């Protein structure tokens, strides 16, 4: 339980002004400015586009005649466009931005080879742009989560190779023997993603597997993308931000190791539970259901670790935007995983397998957990890149509450609606359309949640734009959500 070796604990800012470590960190931060901001800016642009598409998708689901006569605005094209913009445009780019910054900091070396990253960002944007355009023009491949047509997928892969090779190079220049928990997750994410993506592309398009195995490969890819790419980046970021902001080392290093390895082992075996009762050998599905249940182990260890780290420091969420977003995300990770376990059980899956509940599950993972953690990290990182503090505490608060209520409402609506939809579907005395009609009011509620989320994203994008334009506050004190009453609060919130 010796946690003293963690290179996190830094002296409070107030300690020594000209502290060398402090200077060094500022130097490292400055070296990451251009690449990280490039990833962040692109990500936020995609976030806005994806949000608009999402609202469109949500409204069209209960108003099917809305602009349905235009081929590229038909629901079945806008939906995958939204999904891919969010997954590859927003989440992946924002995640990579945060990961790059964390890598540089934790390797304790200035960012080298920035051109690799810049080229990576350019190509990645190009890939997403072509892919989304392709989907809207009717070029979708028809595989969920891998809808991008081949020409876009190749570009994405090239872009990714640039970023990943940068990450591996950075590791060679790292200083210090210790590899911090966050680095395990980040290194894992950077190495897992290319394998996942290449395996998905190869087994579906280059040497396609037969019949139903395409679905198995597709869900294996999608689930692992969720866990081993987004999940790993999200957890790694939380492992950095929470101890950093409260100025206290992680509760237990050993617990973190158990959490990491059980996470890598069990969550990578999930995925087939989404095909429950489908035309597959039963052992595949059972294996994934078991693995899903076993993910309780990493969830419990990670949750416990974060909780014990935060113990006594929860009141700081009142002040620090980063902490508030990150803790929300970390708690959502627990909820996300537990709901994942619940809906994977055969007796439950029978009812919810083909319902809106699975949409709730994806949004819990990608938004309530991952996106919120990434928002938190952006609130921490961007001021350190730009040298200005966030301008309005009120906007941060609005952003948080709109996001939190938005995703909460959306999850509730989709889960409740999904369970009712599934129950009606499984009642053969009701006509089928009864089940879709049942869920419609909940889908309208979801649209309401979508409006909240749209507002929150526009607020955040506006605030981020102000920062980019150098209109942040010039101050050495970070922007707190609420005025800090007591003197001697941790200053590096």
């Amino acid at each position: 339980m010796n946690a003293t070796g963690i290179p996190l604990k830094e002296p409070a800012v107030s300690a020594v002004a000209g502290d060398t470590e402090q200077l060094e960190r500022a130097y490292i931060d400055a070296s990451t400015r251009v690449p990280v901001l490039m990833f962040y800016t692109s990500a936020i642009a995609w976030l806005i586009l994806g949000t608009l598409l999402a609202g469109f998708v949500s409204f069209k689901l209960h108003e099917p005649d809305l602009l349905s006569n235009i081929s590229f605005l038909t629901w079945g094209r806008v939906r995958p466009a939204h999904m891919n913009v969010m997954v590859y445009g927003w989440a992946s780019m924002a995640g990579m931005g945060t990961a790059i910054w964390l890598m540089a900091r934790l390797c304790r070396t200035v960012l080298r080879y920035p051109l690799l990253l810049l080229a990576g960002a350019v190509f990645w944007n190009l890939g997403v742009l072509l892919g989304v355009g392709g989907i809207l023009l009717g070029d979708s491949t028809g595989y969920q989560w891998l809808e991008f047509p081949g020409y876009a997928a190749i570009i994405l892969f090239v872009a990714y190779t640039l970023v990943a090779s940068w990450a591996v190079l950075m590791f060679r220049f790292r200083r210090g023997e210790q590899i911090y928990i966050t680095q395990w997750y980040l290194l894992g994410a950077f190495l897992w993603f290319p394998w996942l993506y290449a395996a998905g592309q190869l087994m579906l398009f280059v040497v396609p597997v037969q019949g139903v195995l395409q679905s198995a490969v597709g869900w294996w890819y999608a689930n692992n993308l969720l866990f081993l790419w987004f999940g790993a980046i999200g957890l790694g970021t939380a492992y950095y931000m929470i101890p950093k902001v409260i100025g206290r080392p992680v509760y237990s290093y050993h617990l973190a190791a158990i959490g990491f390895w059980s996470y890598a082992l069990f969550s990578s075996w999930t995925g087939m539970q989404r095909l429950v009762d489908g035309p597959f050998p039963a052992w595949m599905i059972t294996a994934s259901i078991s693995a899903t249940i076993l993910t309780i182990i990493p969830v419990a260890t990670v949750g416990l670790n974060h909780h014990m780290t935060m113990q006594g420091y929860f009141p700081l969420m009142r002040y620090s935007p980063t902490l508030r977003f990150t803790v929300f995300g970390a708690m959502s990770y627990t909820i996300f995983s537990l709901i994942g376990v619940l809906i994977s059980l055969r007796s439950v899956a029978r009812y919810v397998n083909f319902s809106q509940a699975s949409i709730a599950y994806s949004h819990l993972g990608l938004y309530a957990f991952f996106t919120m953690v990434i928002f938190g990290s952006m609130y921490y990182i961007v001021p350190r890149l730009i040298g200005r503090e966030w301008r309005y505490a009120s906007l941060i608060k609005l952003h948080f509450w709109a996001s939190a209520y938005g995703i909460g409402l959306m999850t509730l609506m989709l889960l409740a609606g999904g369970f009712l939809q599934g129950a009606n579907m499984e009642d053969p005395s009701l006509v089928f359309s009864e089940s879709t009609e049942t869920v419609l009011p909940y889908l309208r509620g979801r649209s309401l949640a979508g409006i909240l989320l749209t507002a929150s994203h526009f607020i955040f994008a506006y605030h981020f734009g102000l920062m980019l334009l150098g209109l942040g506050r010039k101050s050495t004190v970070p922007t707190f959500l609420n005025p800090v009453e007591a003197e001697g609060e941790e200053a590096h919130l």
Partner: protein
Amino acid sequence: MKGLAPLFLGIFGTLAFSWMGLTVIPNWQIGHLNPQSDEEGTDTYPMPQSGMVERGAHVYAANGCIYCHSQQVRADYSADDIERKWGDRRSAPRDYIFERPVFLGKMRMGQDLANIGARAPVEQESPQPAGAATPAASPAAGAAPSGASPGPGSPSPASSAAASPAAAPTSPAPNASPISKPSTSPSPAGSPAAPPSVPHPNEPPTSPSAPVAAGASPTPVPPWPEVTTGEPPMYSAAWHHVHLYSPRSINVDSDMPAYRFLYQTRRISDAPSADALHLTGADMPREGWEIVPTFDAKCLVAYLMSLNQSHPLKEVRSAAPAPASPATSPASSPAPAPAK
């Protein structure tokens, strides 16, 4: 954690384990299936599809049908798909060996389509008057004096009632698709939609599990939820075109978007085209114009008509003796009436 080697090995090993377990080994187990055929080597199933069907699958993918429609029938012990008459047996890996991409689907905002082609009327090419014998005939039009509500598949009064002039007044109304909802409770939702001319509101709705008066038929009546007063027989090619062009003209409760961009409105040159859509009400084109499917739409419908898993498979137990008694098979559900 010290040292990169264990970290790298662990990261590599965990994913390798999962990749082997969930993709490579299944591929070894069920990745090289062949079609089955009987002793003489005839009656091969499944057969590779080609031409329009293949292109239709791409239209299906391009327009995201998979986000609302699944194509898999779950076993009777794990779900009620078979009871819903979405198939006679569960789907098996062999059903999909020629599908690429495979559209198992994860959402049912619309019906399962695994057997949509099997539900087509037998002679879907000929627009015979028996079109009236579609399920349309059932509760609404077939508001038979007896109060019996014949289910779509029940042989007795359906065809005669539908053919009778009593049914005629229902069709001209714009939304003349009184969706009869065979729900167990008298559904208030169905009634307002019904045109006043339809004398059915008081009629006891059909319950699929309890065929009321169709005592002659011992099998449960297929609960086709959608009931059409449109002219083409349900699930025929012409029906699919009307449904794709204007879903709510067939089922007011439908939540499906219209796919009008797959259709072309054009002036009738000399004679109306054979494949022009039989539209009613507000969807009708102006005088002298007609609406015809584009090639993509034809391919899509050809693809839908090809979806058929009714062929028995040796490895799967069929819930119903499908080919033995055509009356119970979904494939022929609309057919019995003309046969009579």
